[in-house]
């Protein structure tokens, strides 16, 4: 287990470093110049040069990368080129929106997907099994922002039961309106996420249902449900855990996408704006935090899987 942990941690750190390099290089390959976003129309070439010097974008790429890594090592994410404000606090200020949104959407997606997926598999021979599967298929094809707009039209504009977007100025100071503001975004992300989850759960369940040990349990007199609960679920859980970890990461990214539809002050809004302004430190900061989250969740997922099924650990260590 310890050997596995050490190796897996090394891989995690290596991936993070690789992600940082890739991020840095890809961003610099984009056409455009942050100095342009900063200066008004009418700026002279001298002003543009001065702005570049001030921003540090006139330095060579290796030099820029070096200073960025150096800052990162001290947990300093740099300063926004545009707002001249530090990036770290900017990101942490957005987490009270993005983190609850992600977690709530994830829990809701699991609550919907597990029963529906199991049902779609267990009742594959009835009419509604395939129908549920087809709905899930359809759900995968639906873009989250479109679903968001649809929900806003129905629940906010027509029925007037929920706000159409925005977040209270005092944040979670008054939890009621804050929670309310998150309902539609959470449902949007959860519905999209649950669609793909349902198919995983269904496939995993079908595999287990066809397994020999389950047939044996049935032959020994257990009802389908008893057999499923006693012998099936645990075996189905192993692939589902790794999928869940992956889905949690995807939910996070889904939340980031949906934020701009609902005008939420989360990481997504920050990212969209930073991209349009070529604000490299902010883009790098948000992407790095997102990438790190995805990698760490994947790492924890792997660990959980090995705890659930120790056989994997032996296989992994050999």
């Amino acid at each position, binding site marked *: 287990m310890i050997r596995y942990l050490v190796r897996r941690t090394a891989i995690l750190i290596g991936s993070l470093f690789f992600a940082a390099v890739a991020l840095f290089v890809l961003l610099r390959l984009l056409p455009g110049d942050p100095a342009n976003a900063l*200066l008004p129309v009418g700026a002279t070439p001298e002003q543009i040069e001065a702005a570049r010097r001030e921003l540090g974008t006139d330095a060579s790429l290796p030099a820029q990368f070096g200073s960025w890594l150096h800052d990162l090592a001290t947990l300093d994410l740099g300063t926004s080129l545009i707002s001249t404000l530090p990036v770290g606090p900017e990101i942490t200020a957005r987490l009270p929106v993005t983190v609850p949104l992600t977690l709530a959407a994830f829990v809701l997606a699991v609550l919907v997907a597990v029963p529906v997926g199991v049902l779609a598999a267990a009742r594959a021979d009835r009419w509604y099994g395939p129908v549920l599967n087809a709905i899930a298929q359809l759900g995968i094809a639906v873009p989250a922002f479109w679903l968001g707009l649809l929900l*806003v039209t129905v629940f906010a504009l027509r029925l*007037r039961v929920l706000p159409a*977007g925005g977040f209270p100025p005092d944040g979670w100071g008054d939890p009621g*309106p804050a929670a309310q503001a998150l309902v539609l975004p959470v449902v949007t992300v959860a519905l999209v996420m649950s669609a793909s989850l349902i198919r995983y759960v269904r496939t995993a369940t079908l595999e287990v249902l066809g397994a020999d040990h389950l047939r044996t349990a049935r032959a020994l007199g257990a009802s389908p449900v008893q057999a499923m609960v006693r012998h099936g679920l645990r075996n189905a859980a192993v692939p589902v855990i790794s999928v869940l970890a992956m889905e949690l990461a995807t939910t996070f990214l889904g939340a980031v996408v949906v934020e701009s539809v609902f*005008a939420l002050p989360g990481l997504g809004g920050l990212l969209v704006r930073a991209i349009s302004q070529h604000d490299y430190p902010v883009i790098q900061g948000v992407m790095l935090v997102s990438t790190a989250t995805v990698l760490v969740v994947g790492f924890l997922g792997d660990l959980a899987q090995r705890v659930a099924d120790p056989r994997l650990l032996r296989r992994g260590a050999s």
Partner: protein
Amino acid sequence: MNVRKLITASLALVTAAGLLAACGDDGGGSSGGSGGTATIQVGSQYEPQNLDNTAGGGQGVTEALNGNVYEGLFKLTDTGTVEPLLAKSNKVSDDGLTYTFTLQPDVKFHSGKALTSADVKAGIERVTADNSKSSRKSNLEVVKSIATPDDATVVVTLSSRSISFIYNLSYVWIVNSQAKDYTTTADGTGPYKLGQWKRGSTLTLTKFDGYWGTPAKNAGVVFHYFTDATALNNALLTNAVDVVTSEQSPDALAQFSNNSSYKITNGKSTTKLLLAFNDKVAPFDKVEVRQAVSRAIDDKKLLNSIWGDYGTPIGSMVPPTDPWYEDLTTVNAYDPASAKQLLARAGLPNGFSFTLDTPNYDPHPTAATFLKSELAKVGITVTINTITADQWYTKVYQKHDFTATMQEHVNDRDVVFYGNPDFYFGYDNKQVTTEINQAEQAKTADGQTALLKQANKTIAEQAASDWLYLYPQIVVASAKLSGYPVNGLNAQFFAYGIVKS
């Protein structure tokens, strides 16, 4: 059996969560109260980058803070006139080089410090400083020195006559000279002080009780920021905001115009959509060719297809709120037959082809397609080259590497760009350059106006560019609201007069 229970339970949970959330009010974010106790909820797409207008704060900082939190010696009103604000009086020397300002007495900053001449000096110097990113910096380069003989008097000496000096001062915020952080805090003399700025979401202004002038007619303002126009309009439809400062989505107007709960005002903007030729490059170095292209395009039809009944054809670079405005829509007006004649006279009887660099965001792609079909009718073939805003800036604006392009110019009083042959238009007319320079040196506003009118007429006749139309400035507000600015000149949005019934 268990499976069914599980499903029932989870469905119940989802429904319960939805109902629970629905129990609140009707989604409104509008604070209660009316008259002087109401807080006005304003929706905007222009969030400040930071709170400093000399450090790249952007359009949003002008909208929220200009006139509301910070004040200048003078102010540009919503109708385009310049009025004294913190300057109680001003005297100009006969040679036009020395300005002596006397300050309003008993003016206090939000921090409690009294306004003195040192603060005025600091305010002007912040704009002209080396690291200033103010778009007004070049206008104030004529400032040679600033003296403060006593606390209430400021004497500014210019290196040359500048008739626009007073107007330019309306953009200069008078700041507390002892303030340290201008990017996240604010200390002005305006009717509101800065409350909370929740980045990515809201900026709150609260009424300042110690204000020296007429106090604000409401308790405060909350600016709500949206990156998405649809989300912004939805916020207005659900009463989460009371007013949208500048409607950018023509398609959204129908849902408000057929509804008595909302009022739409069609104000005058200063934003012009230009078909800008590179006047230094063939074939647009020929006046006849530029005139031909201008006459081949039906501007009214274009405006109508994009904005419906909103917006104004202007026929020149000068918007109606500039003092030297004249209706020049009849100069090079739509006339395809004469366009063909002009082409023949320019030696291009069979037309020609050119590439149009078109920014990739609305309304440029639509307008470019329209131009292409209009020009095809007189034998001109257009190749549309779609580029990003950044590419535009580098390729067109900096390198002048283009034949023709489309762009919007947002500022007022910007006809003076045509006096600079090095500007990306490449328009080089000695007489116009002289007139524009002389206008700035004029002794009276009337003299300035006469010269700029003359210059603008020449520019329009020579079709230096084709001015397609003036954008509408559309404010959509709840019918309960009154007293808001409708023109929003240079993105200012004075909030102190707004009343909610």
